[in-house]
């Protein structure tokens, strides 16, 4: 759901790119949060696998519908700045858009970090992840907070979908890139925001190196192969929570 929901809306945004991107991300946030509240709320505290499979099924439906409506890949979704180019060393160059992405990403991360660490809702969200039943009994509206979390993740997904679309092109297969978030999260450690940043960057670099040194078809598999190694060696990832329990 989160993975593919962004595509449809970012396409609508071609008219006025920046505003369109923000609107698209907000729509994704709404769809994602509402989708959770309506559909997935009942699975709180139950098997997470069912939820995962449901979201996968739903994202298949959404990406197929998107494909039906817009028919295949369309041309670039032009954010301002993609035509401004600076030359770096040698043949390497960078566009203003790339610089924008490099700035936006840490900003999003910082915002999420601050939310989780310093706001009451963030603390309540972490508490709900720790123990949903105790959180409820502490007066926390767990289902409502989870919807908020889904909305935030929908917003981030929408934003990244738009940015990916601006650097390459938009198509329904963007959902595959969404799946790549799983290895990144495993590498960094589920539940760790800095972990996601480090995991994402590591995999991104590894991916490019593999394409350059091994084969262009090695792009997808690299992340998953690294994930397998991490799962075998250190399943909680780089920054995974050590369960704090006094012996």
């Amino acid at each position, binding site marked *: 759901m989160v993975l593919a929901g962004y595509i449809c809306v970012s396409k609508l945004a071609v008219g006025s790119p920046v505003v369109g991107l923000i609107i698209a991300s907000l729509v994704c946030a709404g769809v994602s949060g509402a989708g959770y509240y309506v559909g997935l709320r009942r699975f709180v505290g139950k098997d997470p696998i069912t939820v995962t*499979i449901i979201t996968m099924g739903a994202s298949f439906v959404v990406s197929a519908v998107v494909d039906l409506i817009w028919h295949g890949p369309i041309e670039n979704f032009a954010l301002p700045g993609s035509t401004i180019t600076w030359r770096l060393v040698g043949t390497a160059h960078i566009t203003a858009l790339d610089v924008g992405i490099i700035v936006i990403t840490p900003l999003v991360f910082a915002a999420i970090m601050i939310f989780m660490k310093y706001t009451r809702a963030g603390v309540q969200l972490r508490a709900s992840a720790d123990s949903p039943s105790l959180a409820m009994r502490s007066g926390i509206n767990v289902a409502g907070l989870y919807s908020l979390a889904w909305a935030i993740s929908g917003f981030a997904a929408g934003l990244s979908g738009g940015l990916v679309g601006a650097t390459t092109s938009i198509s329904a297969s963007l959902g595959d890139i969404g799946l790549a978030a799983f290895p990144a999260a495993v590498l960094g450690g589920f539940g760790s925001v800095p972990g996601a940043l480090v995991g994402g960057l590591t995999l991104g670099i590894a991916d490019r190196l593999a394409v350059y040194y091994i084969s262009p078809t090695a792009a997808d598999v690299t992340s998953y192969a690294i994930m397998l190694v991490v*799962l075998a060696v250190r399943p909680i990832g780089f920054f995974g929570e050590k369960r704090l329990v006094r012996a």
Partner: protein
Amino acid sequence: VSELPVSGRAWRALDAGPVRRVAYWVPYLLFLLPPLFFSDQIEVWVNPLLIAVAGAVALNLLTGTAGLVSLGQSAFLAVGAYTSVVIAISAGLPFWVALLSSLVSGAVIGLVVSVSTSRLRGLYGVLSTLALQYVVVYAGTRYEESANNTAAFVLPPAKLFVSIGTSTRWYVVLAMTAFLFLELYRRVLRSHVGRAWEVIRERDRTASMLGIDVRRYEMYAWVTSGAMVSIVGCLQAYYLSAVSPDFFTLNIAIQYFAMIVIGGRGSPIGSVIGAVVLITIPYEMQAIVSGIGSSNALSDLADYEQVVYGALLVLFLFLAPDGLVGRFAALGRQLWTAVAAPRLNLASSRPVAARTAAALPTPAATAVPAEATPAGTVSPGRRGTPAAESRTGFLDITDLTVSYKTAGMALENVSLSMSEGEVVAVLGPNGVGKTTLLRAISGFAPDEPGIINRGAVHFRGTKLNRVKPHLRARRGVVLVPERDKVFPQLTVYENLELACPRGKAVSDAADEVVSLFPALRRRLHTAAGLLSGGERQMLAIARAFMLEPALLLLDETSLGLAPIVASQVMAEIRTIVRESKISVLLVEQNIGLARVVADRYYVLQQGRIAAAGEFGADDDVDEVSGSYFGEVPA
């Protein structure tokens, strides 16, 4: 899940005789239908269906029965297909060698997966099968590149004694495979291996305590299923006579998953039904679309199919997680109770609710007329309660009967009242329903599947039965549970912060609460998981105070604390409660500790209230402990 499919039920009812032996084989007669009735659709519909049946059986064994969710179905198919390519094209060996090699390679990959996922639970295991998908497809792509093959690999025609060229001959081969797989699955289900898998699926954590070597049985499941799927991959490759990495997408894995969810997880027949549904729908859609004849519609077909099976998967997981087989079984049970059972006059088939009601006579119900309680506060239809209980308007529990889905009755006809400002203890040994009582008052969380069968909990005149736990907490009914009473990953301060009501400054409220428990002050920025037992108890009560409780529910406050710490904590509770005028309902095994704080007591025995009284002079301890240990005076 624990309910047997109706076929299984009827099955057991039959004596082990000729009827049973014949009935067992009857479903396989379905295999005769295609050549008789669908002979013109064998190539396009029946044979793909049989491939899907065999694949679905193999996946159902792994995911439905052993509970190991796999997104690697497509990868295992690819393993079989590429093994065939290597054997048939690169080595030039015949079909049967390819078939055997596929079996071996699938089993080996299954072994690898089982070893690499044996430490992983839940979502992580699923993710590693997702990784398998990408790794295998990549390997296939590389192999294709290295073979300098621009298009798909083309396999030679299969030959097993005779050439399997025609679709009818393929039908025979595929039907035999589907039959063998189904028969294998049915037999495994009745063997000790199948039972072990079911135990692992239902109770992963306790399976090892039951003496089941979980890892070993999980390995069996991966190896068996891997080998079977790989064989299906080999057959499919020969049937289509082409192999390309594009065939083995994640969509295929999800499609197979949808089959077993729609048909019924853990059921052989369910695998067949699911395969029929998911193969027939696209087939029919294709027929319709080509009838329309628009090329646009044809090109969109794959998308429409994806929408349909994605939607079916989601809908079934929501509405019928037991699949069509589960639905049929439920329907069969209803028919059985409605039609067959009354005629046969079988006592055991009476609806459970009626039986329970009959088994629980309420003696007071007929004796006490309705005027015994003030009319305004009584919900209509409420049964009369023993006259000893009168409503206080603060906490009133009337005729409460609670059961758990898994364990049956936990509380029976419990009535209890307390006024504002009172401190009341509920006494009783382990397992008599004390915790259940507190949960019924504070609300059941999703992982505590308790159900209020009868009776009501009223708090300040409002019926709480259907109020959600967090809203009860906000109304002032706050539970401090027996175990897991703090959030270990959060600091002490964060533990307090999260309970702070909206619109109130956290620092002020926390400061106020911490002043009640000075020991917490120097630990404010320590993670709660690192606190000692006594400190945790204090933190839990402090967090409860953040919510400004009117009624504090304390579950086994003394549990796990050294006696001296326990009495210190109790003494602190008493001081605070006396000062703040908060009402407390506490559950205790230790009478001595309970009487430090409480004014009155109830004794709970086997889910019923056995005695009640007031703590007065020292001499009543004997009386209380008498009823506590079951010597209730008549």
